Structures are given as C-alpha cells and as structure tokens.
C-alpha cells in the first residue's frame, strides 16, 4: 500500500506485470474511488464551463463526454479532466484526486454573482471502479444483466438502481475498451467485488496503481503532476486536439494563441530505451548531444514491449521521432531514441 493524494492505495494486488497483461489480454478492475467528481448545473453552466475549460462543451449532446483541460491565466495546466453533459443544463466532471481543491478554487474564482451556476463537489461521497480490457463487455453483462446497455466510448449513462444511482462512463486510462462506474461510496465495495469476480471468470483480475501507470504510459497518456504542470501549456504537452482556440475566450487562451504564432519552447516527447537498461524513472536527466536537455517526466519498463519507455520535454527540433538521446541513470548514460506515441499498438 502507498499513500496517494490522501488515500492508501495498493500498487499491486498480485504483480504489476500480471495485472498489466490481464488488462491487455482479458480484463482488469481498478478501484478509482480517489478520483474527484463535480456537478455543474444551471442555465449558465455551459457558458461557464466554456470560459473555464479548453475544449468546447457546446459540442456535447446529452450523454456525451470529452477530455478537456483547466488552465491558469498563464496557460499552464491545473488539471486534465473529463466533462460529460448529463442534461441540457447539467454537467458531470471527473477530475484528478490530487487536484480537487485546486480545481474547485479555480472554478469558484471564475464564478460571478451574475452567473446562474451551481457547483457541487461530490468527490467525498462518491466511489468508483474502472473495468478495462477486451473482455469489459462480458464483465458489464455479468454485473448488470443482458438487458443493460454498455456505455459506448465517451458517453455517460445514468442508472437508478435499488442500491443508488450509477454513473456509467465509456472512458478509461489504458487504451483498452472499458467503462468507469461512479456511485455513492457505501455501494462501491459491493460493485468492486462483483466486478472482480466477473473479471476473474473472464481470465482477468483486480489491478493496482502500478499497472494503471504502466498501461496509461504505453498509450502515451499524460499523468498530471508528472507530465502536466502549471508551468507548461497543453500545446507543449501535445494536447492541442483538446484545445478549441476558435472559442472567443477561455482562461489561458492568450498564451496559447501566442505560442501557436511564435512556436513552442519545448514539447512533451516520447522515448524508448534502445538496449537492455534500467527502466527510466521520473527526474532522471535527459541528455541531448552530450548536454542535459531536460528530465524524465514519466518513465517505466513497458510490460507489453519489454523495454524502458518514457516521456520528457525536449526542444522542438529534438522532439522528432528518431532523435538520439541518452538517459542518465546513477551517473551512467544509456542510449534512447525519440519515438511516436502511442508506444503500444494493438496487433
């Protein structure tokens, strides 16, 4: 068990490698009760969220969701999150556990008395699980019966059950098909056990934080705190797809427009080790042409590829795939090269 954003969480239940492979080959169940949930509602909710977030919530039909970012005035990333439209005047936000307080403070600071908006933090009363992997649909059916409708990618389905409301979301953090379920915390153990049982029947298992990290990194998904920070913009992080600069205003827009015109100072780049080497880990120096050019943000041994992989901010000219770099580990430099994301592609 390790402390994580105020929670005690297991790094692994059996082994990171086994849990990782279970998700790629069958299915895995993650406890994600630590994650935060906000409900933003009112006649002004859409306009408010479009001022606060980089993506365009007006494009969402009811039951659709999108990945988006909350920035500071300087264009740095406070948090990355998913926002779902649950009615024409209500949105469900899923945010990082470690950023709940900062997110709330930023959102509240953007609210004025003139806004018809209610902002509710329901994080502490909400538990969650993620079911991920090619056998997710079978687990879903085992949990909810053959009649239940599987939430398709980036959609949300709210179900009333005798045990309380379920928010069923077609999202995840592994690159596999799957869903996330949020529900009142008193019910989460029941659902976790049920999902775990169903997963084991499909050749899968329950998974800890360790596999969650190796799975997301194989896809090149950023982790806030490692790969995202208030010092760098989503354009530098390679998340321009989730930024709608055509919107007339949103917090941080000016910086992004300027960066787009003048060019980026650096770019989050994916790299892999070339030979057998210790796994790259956060903060190891990254060496470019003999000089330190940055440090590893995220790094691990890829269980699927059997080689070290990671991400680091590099000068734009060095961020092209094929660029030779070195990772310094305990004073020794090991060769690596910049590659395209994702690291892992389904065969």
């Amino acid at each position: 068990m390790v402390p994580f954003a105020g929670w005690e969480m297991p790094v692994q239940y059996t082994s990171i490698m086994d849990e990782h492979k279970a998700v790629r080959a069958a299915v895995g169940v993650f406890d994600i009760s630590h994650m935060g949930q906000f409900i933003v509602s009112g006649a002004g909710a859409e306009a408010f969220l479009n001022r606060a977030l980089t993506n365009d919530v007006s494009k969402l039909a009811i039951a659709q969701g999108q990945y988006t970012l909350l920035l500071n005035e300087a264009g740095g990333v406070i948090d990355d999150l998913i926002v779902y439209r649950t009615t024409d005047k209500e949105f469900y936000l899923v945010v990082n556990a470690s950023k709940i307080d900062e997110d709330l403070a930023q959102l509240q600071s953007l609210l004025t008395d003139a806004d018809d908006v209610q902002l509710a933090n329901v994080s502490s009363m909400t538990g969650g699980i993620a079911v991920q992997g090619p056998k997710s649909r079978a687990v879903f059916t085992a949990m909810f019966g053959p009649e239940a409708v599987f939430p398709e990618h980036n959609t949300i389905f709210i179900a009333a059950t005798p045990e309380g409301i379920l928010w069923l979301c077609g999202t995840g953090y592994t690159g596999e098909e799957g869903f996330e379920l949020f529900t009142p915390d008193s019910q989460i153990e029941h659902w976790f056990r049920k999902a775990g049982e169903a997963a084991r029947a499909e050749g899968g298992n329950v998974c800890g934080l360790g596999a969650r990290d190796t799975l997301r990194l194989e896809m090149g998904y950023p982790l806030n705190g490692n790969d995202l920070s208030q010092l760098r913009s989503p354009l530098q992080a390679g998340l321009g797809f989730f930024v709608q600069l055509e919107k007339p205003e949103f917090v941080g827009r000016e910086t992004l427009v300027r960066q787009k015109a003048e060019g980026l100072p650096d770019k989050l780049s994916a790299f892999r080790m070339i030979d057998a080497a210790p796994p790259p880990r956060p903060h190891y120096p990254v060496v470019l042409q003999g000089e330190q050019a940055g440090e590893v943000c995220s790094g691990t041994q890829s269980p699927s590829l059997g080689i070290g992989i990671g991400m680091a901010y590099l000068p734009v000219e060095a961020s092209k795939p094929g660029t030779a770099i070195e990772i310094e580990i305990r004073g020794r430099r090991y060769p690596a090269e910049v590659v395209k994301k994702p690291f892992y592609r389904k065969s």
Partner: protein
Amino acid sequence: MSNIPDNLQYRESHEWIDATQDPAPVGITDYAQNALGDVVFVELPKVGRQVQAGEQVAVIESVKAASDIYAPATGEIVAVNDALAGNPALINTDPYAEGWMFKIKTSSTSTLLDAAAYAKVIA
C-alpha cells in the same frame, strides 16, 4: 508465507548469504522479491571489487522501484550471475538458487541473522 531456508544467513535489508560455501553466494530473500515485484534489470558489481560488509554493491530494478543491495560480508567479488542479464526474473522465480547475484570470497562476515531472527524482522 515467505520461504526462509535454515542453512542461510540474512541481513535486515533482505539479502541472504550462504557462508557454508566458499566463495559464498549472495541474493535477496523470497520476502524481498515478492515485495519488489517483477524484476526487470539487475546492476551487478565488477568481479575483483573489494567490498565492505554493509556497502551498497548492486541495484535491483523492478517495474515498481530501484532498490540498493548491500554486501552481507567483507571480501572480494569473485563471480557474478551473468544469467540475470538475459533473465532478471530469475530473482522472482528462484531467489535462493538460480537467482543468486554474486559470490564473495569472504575474509569476515558482519553480524548476520539466522533464519529465525530474520523471520521476526519480516513478521
């Protein structure tokens, strides 16, 4: 339950040494390999290096973390387990035999734990 063979001696930092052999093989315990998880890389000392008991001499990298390994005895490293370069997971699958790390020609051992005392450390 962890496997703790009676014929070995242990450090609190979870290394074992078989001092009945000369040179004496060294590795990490079943408890340690289980706690570290999947071993993916091992950095071994150079053959010929003189080491002091308690000196950091090797590193084991699992997916989870990098862990320092300390010499259980003073002496000279006379052999390392080259098989670990190609198959570091031997430390997980067979920590007391195929997963040995290096051999020390010992001049003296420091105070080490017997199996019963080590069992208390990890209890």
